[in-house]
């Protein structure tokens, strides 16, 4: 569903469908370090519409994770403007407008899988019955039904990351922020989780912002690919995908359309990267 088609329809967060979920203008961020200021982000302009699946791709140090953390109000920009759900990132965070999935599963080792998913729900003071319902529903979404009573160390890395996705979904946000969630997993597991994530996205119609350094992953998942380059971190290119929206078979990665998109992303990464070292 493209932005604008459902204009007039008001969602629970109070954002009309015609409005951008994320609106970033001339944003910059400079870290003060012992060695002097380091410009992490420079002159970022980006709009993300409701229902989009947007990937940030770029080499290490291009600021893709920092940009995601700015959206999540985990870092403060030093210039420009940003709105999330039509408000400031801080108000969006206080409103629990997004779910955040980190590079590591970040499950609490003393909690079972079910209690880990319950963590945000306890903080939101949901009733026990509401918690149980959301735990069951979201564990089912990531195919972890039956693992409720297991502790994290009893699960594989891929299952742990799926549990952390269930935990982010349990907040029932319209926006899902994912920071290289599959970066530490092997290729086979990663393919499988990518496929599942697309199905999940199609089913739940959430807006997803996804950080990765894998070209196939970015092209396979995204409706829009933001190619970034380092020193200072900036947007080099924004690639709109012409692949069909919704669940895509893994085979799509062999098609000429896919390869053409991947080539454009690769060219962008190469052009943006300074090989002076």
């Amino acid at each position, binding site marked *: 569903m493209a932005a604008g088609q459902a204009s007039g329809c008001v969602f629970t967060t109070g954002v009309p469908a015609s409005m951008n979920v994320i609106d970033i203008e001339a944003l910059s961020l400079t870290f003060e370090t012992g060695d002097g200021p380091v410009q992490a982000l420079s002159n970022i302009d980006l709009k993300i519409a409701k229902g989009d699946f947007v990937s940030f791709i770029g080499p290490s140090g291009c600021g893709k994770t920092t940009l995601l953390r700015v959206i*999540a*109000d*985990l870092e403060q920009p030093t210039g420009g403007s940003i709105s999330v759900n039509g408000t400031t990132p801080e108000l969006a*965070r*206080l409103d*629990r407008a*997004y*779910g*955040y999935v*980190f*590079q*590591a599963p*970040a499950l*609490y*080792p*003393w*909690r*079972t899988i079910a209690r880990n998913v319950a*963590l*945000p729900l*306890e*903080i*939101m003071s949901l009733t026990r019955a509401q918690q149980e319902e959301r735990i069951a529903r979201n564990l089912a979404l990531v195919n972890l039904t039956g693992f409720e009573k297991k*502790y994290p*160390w009893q699960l594989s890395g891929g299952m742990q990351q799926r549990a952390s996705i269930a935990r982010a979904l349990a*907040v029932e946000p319209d926006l899902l922020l994912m920071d290289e969630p599959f970066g530490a997993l092997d290729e086979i597991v990663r393919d499988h989780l990518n496929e599942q994530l697309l199905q999940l996205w199609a089913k739940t119609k959430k807006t997803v912002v996804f950080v990765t350094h894998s070209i196939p992953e970015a092209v396979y998942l995204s409706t829009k690919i933001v190619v970034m380059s380092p020193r200072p971190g900036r947007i080099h290119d924004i690639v709109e995908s012409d692949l069909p929206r919704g669940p895509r078979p893994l085979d799509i990665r062999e098609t000429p359309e896919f390869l053409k998109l991947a080539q454009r992303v690769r060219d962008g990464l190469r052009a943006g990267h300074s090989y002076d070292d």
Partner: protein
Amino acid sequence: MTKPSFLRESVVPVLTVLAVLVAFWYVAALFMNHSMVVAEAQLKGLAFTPSETWLRSWALDKPLLPAPHQVIAELWRSTAGLSVTSKRSLVYHGWVTLSATLLGFLLGTLLGILLAIGIVHQKVMDKSLMPWIIASQTVPILAVAPMLIVVLNAIGISGLLPKALISTYLSFFPVAVGMVKGLRSPEAIHLDLMRTYNADDFQVFTKLRWPASVPFLFASLKVGIAISLIGAIVGELPTGAIAGLGARLLFGSYYGQTIQIWAALFAAAFLAGLLVLVVGWSERLVMHLMGARPERRAG
């Protein structure tokens, strides 16, 4: 290779070391008490054969160094051989010391935890309290204990509490330092997660910092319980206390009853070992209840 047996891996090495120690002890007792036996022989105008001298140096009433079997006999006599209410029973004295130890340990643990919570949440407390906490442990406790007990006695506080307070003074320190580290142990990613949920400080404490600090707490408690016992014994020394293992040590040295001193020493060591063991068991139980992965034996 057969599968490793408990007997060969644990019992045999421990018993070997013990046997060497006991043998060394007997030899040492022989050398230290030998001159006393010779002096006794001269006094009574007797001539002992070498083997007689040996046996007598392991059976003196007030030896410089009592032989192991003398200490064991005294331990047996003063525990199993007497009613526990007897003023000469080591069980009675052990209980007196233990009750002060446990009270002091409880207070010290609470104080240590409260200080750590304050230090972790308030920068002002971190800056102002931490140097004093460290300085408190540089004061020699043997010097402080008598003054504290005399002062407390003067204002009408006597009995269990002054001794317990010395245990508290010693045991709060490892707990405070360990818990500051423990409460700060959550990784940045776990704290960020709480921030994305808009959790308040209290929720971050109860759901993250406190459970994360449990292994640190138990490491501190093991040090704290042993040091609490030392505190209680030190607290029994200066006032010429009537009861407790410290009092037994003191009386033994007043009257040259070396066997009694060694028996009290062993009782104290046994008590300390038992207390550390109990803390270790509770740690295993708590970690099990918290779903920790069972530890595999190395090797």
